[in-house]
């Protein structure tokens, strides 16, 4: 008779009894971090309130977060500064709410446009090692179309690009990654709606859409998972779009409503700076699949 259940309990009990947790350090550091986090949250709340007043007064007219978005209407030449792009960007009604993925999408148009960006940049890596170096400017090109500029690159890159961007309404961490969908990832249904948690750990900012995960079949035959994640307990959440290609790769884009920095999170805004449909357009670009998963 296999008694692994009883053995496991005993193994845990014995192993745990030998651990000596650094309780004093944990108390001290978590209190310090908590103070900082509360101060940041209070600051963000004030900033958000000021932002809402500004929007109400009509100071900002190109508002992504209240039903209007920026969609590129033509080919954007590589290497142009963001300001030049703005001339070719038109405001158009955004289908549905920020979390909506059911309305008509403009992915095809946007995808062909952004493909032109990558083709004209010639940003095609020849080796896996060159991925992050080449992927970073590619992501920056894509998001600059939507009025975002890079503030800094994260040192702990997990994909082809991991940046802090700003559109003037609050900084946001945006991460792009491309990887083979390995057996290990598949074993826990990573990047998909399976096991998606629809509850918040804490309270999300006012105006943020509720958590959701939608499965979308693209016209190219790929499968896409479009998510608004649950709040992590500090008001931070992500928009995520994970595109599964027919050749077993997954192109993933995460955009947060703030900037996680180690144990701290700056929640800077109610919603991420890119809409889900804009993110769908970005991951649809075939340029991402030029990258080879180094893992």
């Amino acid at each position, binding site marked *: 008779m*296999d008694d*692994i*259940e009883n*053995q*496991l*309990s*005993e*193994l*845990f*009990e*014995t*192993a*745990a009894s*030998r*651990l000596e*947790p*650094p*309780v004093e*350090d*944990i*108390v001290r*550091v*978590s*209190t310090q*971090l*908590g*103070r900082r*986090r*509360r101060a940041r*949250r209070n600051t963000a709340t004030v900033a958000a309130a000021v932002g809402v007043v500004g929007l109400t007064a009509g100071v900002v007219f190109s508002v992504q977060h209240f039903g209007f978005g920026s969609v590129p209407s033509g080919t954007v030449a590589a290497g142009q500064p963001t300001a030049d792009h703005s001339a070719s960007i038109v405001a158009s009604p955004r289908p549905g709410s920020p979390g909506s993925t059911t309305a008509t999408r403009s992915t095809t148009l946007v995808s062909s446009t952004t493909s032109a960006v990558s083709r004209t940049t010639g940003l095609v890596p020849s080796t896996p090692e060159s991925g992050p170096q080449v992927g970073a400017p590619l992501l920056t090109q894509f998001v600059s179309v939507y009025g975002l500029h890079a503030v800094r690159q994260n040192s*702990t890159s*997990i994909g082809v690009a991991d940046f802090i961007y700003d559109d003037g309404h609050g900084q946001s961490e945006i*991460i792009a*990654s491309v990887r083979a969908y*390995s*057996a*290990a*990832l598949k*074993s*826990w249904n*990573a*990047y998909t709606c399976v*096991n998606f*948690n*629809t*509850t918040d*750990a*804490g309270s999300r900012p006012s105006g943020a859409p509720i958590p959701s995960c939608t499965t979308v079949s693209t016209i190219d035959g790929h499968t896409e998972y479009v998510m608004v*994640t*649950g709040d*992590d*307990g*500090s008001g931070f959440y992500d928009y*995520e779009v994970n595109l599964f290609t027919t050749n077993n790769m997954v192109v993933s884009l*995460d955009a*947060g409503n703030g900037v*996680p920095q*180690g*144990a*701290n999170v700056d929640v800077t805004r109610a919603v991420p700076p890119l809409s889900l449909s804009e993110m769908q357009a970005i991951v649809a670009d075939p340029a991402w699949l030029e990258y080879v998963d180094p893992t």
Partner: protein
Amino acid sequence: MTSRPGEDEFRQFVTAKAGQLFKVAYFICGDWHDAQDLLQTSLAKLYVAWQRIEQIEAADAYARKVLLRTYLSQRRLKRSSELPVDVHDLGARLVDPGTDHELHLTLVAALRMLPPRNRAAVVLHYLEGHSLAAIAEYLGTTESAVKSLNTRSLRQLRAQLGDTREVLFQR
């Protein structure tokens, strides 16, 4: 330094609970420093919510919920090295009863081969003794889903630990 309102109570709570919460964090992360980071981050979130929490039992449950939510955040998992090892890597990481007699290392090595969600369920059930229903509540899923996770995890652990289990119990 002057304490903020409620801070003394928070510190008392953390002093009392950090040891056990750290053990949970350690076995799901598989790394001492990652566990400490995860727990401190989670407790910092608790600090912010502290004044909204009226009962110590609620604080205990909230701390675990935030710990698990923070651990299972896809963003964090993508960034960390906690993805389960792939099939082709297993040979290099199999528990070796002849050389690896450190009990907790053996257990951690076996746990690391489980997907993060399975690992969390196993730790909550066998370390902390939570019921499957309670784990379902923490993970935001159904009891039957947790039962399924548990069955798959046991099958995998049984295979990974193999004869090591007998060696461990002879120590």
